[in-house]
């Protein structure tokens, strides 16, 4: 058990460059504030990828089906991305450069390490999104010494060891829950632990 993956919190793993992840941050941080739940938000920068790509090459009929399904899935993902951007209030042109995404990932890691909870963090984070630049300020450490902070790779590796392989995903009381829709179940798990 990593010391920063404490049991007494709901952990949310996100990819800062992904609108669905940002939607999860906005919704979960408001939810945690309302319910008085300790929330930690961590960057997960290594995704599982597309498992469908592992299907062995089949006959021409199967390959046509795979191609059509992949196209339909990609179109739907674009639709969901638009819905997520609408929820978060991001323009259709929104996109973080790799440098900005990394800076935001570091900001999330450091803020989670420094603060007792990320509940209600959205307004602060969205200001950084508005800049969309590499100049996201590192938070001033309260008591913690960030010199000993895990690297982004170490954070992703630790989350992966706990079963979080995609984003957004939650970890609470040893339970892995993938997707933003699980907040009612997470609340039930949290209350059962209390």
């Amino acid at each position, binding site marked *: 058990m990593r010391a920063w993956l404490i049991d007494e919190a709901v952990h949310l793993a996100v990819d800062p460059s992904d609108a669905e992840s940002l939607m999860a941050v906005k919704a979960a941080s408001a939810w945690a504030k309302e319910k008085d739940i300790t929330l930690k938000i961590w960057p997960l920068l290594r995704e*599982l990828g597309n*498992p469908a790509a592992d299907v062995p090459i089949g006959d021409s009929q199967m390959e046509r089906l795979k191609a059509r399904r992949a196209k339909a899935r990609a179109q739907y993902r674009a639709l969901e991305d638009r*819905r997520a951007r609408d929820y978060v209030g991001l323009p259709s042109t929104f996109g973080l450069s790799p440098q900005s995404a990394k800076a935001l990932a570091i900001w999330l890691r450091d803020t989670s390490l420094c603060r007792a909870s990320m509940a209600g963090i959205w307004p602060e984070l969205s200001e950084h999104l508005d800049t969309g630049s590499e100049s996201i300020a590192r938070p001033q450490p309260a008591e913690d010494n960030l010199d000993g902070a895990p690297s982004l790779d170490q954070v992703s590796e630790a989350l992966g060891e706990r079963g979080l392989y995609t984003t957004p995903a939650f970890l609470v009381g040893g339970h892995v829950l*993938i997707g933003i*829709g699980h907040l009612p179940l997470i609340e039930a798990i949290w209350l059962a632990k209390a």
Partner: protein
Amino acid sequence: MLTVLTDFKSPYAFVANDLIWALESRYGIEINWLPLSLNIASFAGSATKTDTRAQGDKPQTQGNRSARQWAVIRYAYMDARRYAENQGLTLKGPKTVWNSDMACVGLLWAKEKSESRAQLKSFMDSAFQRFFERAFEVDNLDAVRALLASTGITTSGFTEYAQGEGMATHLELQDALLDQGCFGVPTFLIDDEIYFGREHLARVAWHLEGCPGAPPIKCYPWLPETAE
């Protein structure tokens, strides 16, 4: 008009079934149920588990799934099982990758021949529950006919339908749905929008209410524990 795409072999469609049916009574509507038969091998590989414990051996699994495909499949069943248990449902993982085209034809038949919405619901409930109890072979014409009969739906002419017009209609429908951008279940079609996954139920209800205010966020319904 609300159209819902479903497949009796999908654990996610199973745990959504009752929740979706509840929309009928809540909003006084008739859902247009359509079958979407998932070709699981085309996106998640294939696997078959052979239980040889009677001979004292460990169960053997054969197939072509990669490690990350297994990770996704194992999570999907773990996730669906906790929501099934929340609804008092039994969900046993299938031991092979099924082709559910025949059961889907059964749904088309049941839609046409049911004498009431309750009868159609009874067929669908039974199909899901028995499949996930490993007591219903979704690829078997006799099993589908028996299930129709057990829910009081006429089976006169079903064999001919299933082997001819019904199967042809079903396969044409699969092509049309994929062209429309539908690839998974449950999928909801309403007001020219497509929603894939039961986490959109609240948003579907929002459409049925006339889209008042901001749309609700995704949410998997969780029934509160009842005191015993």
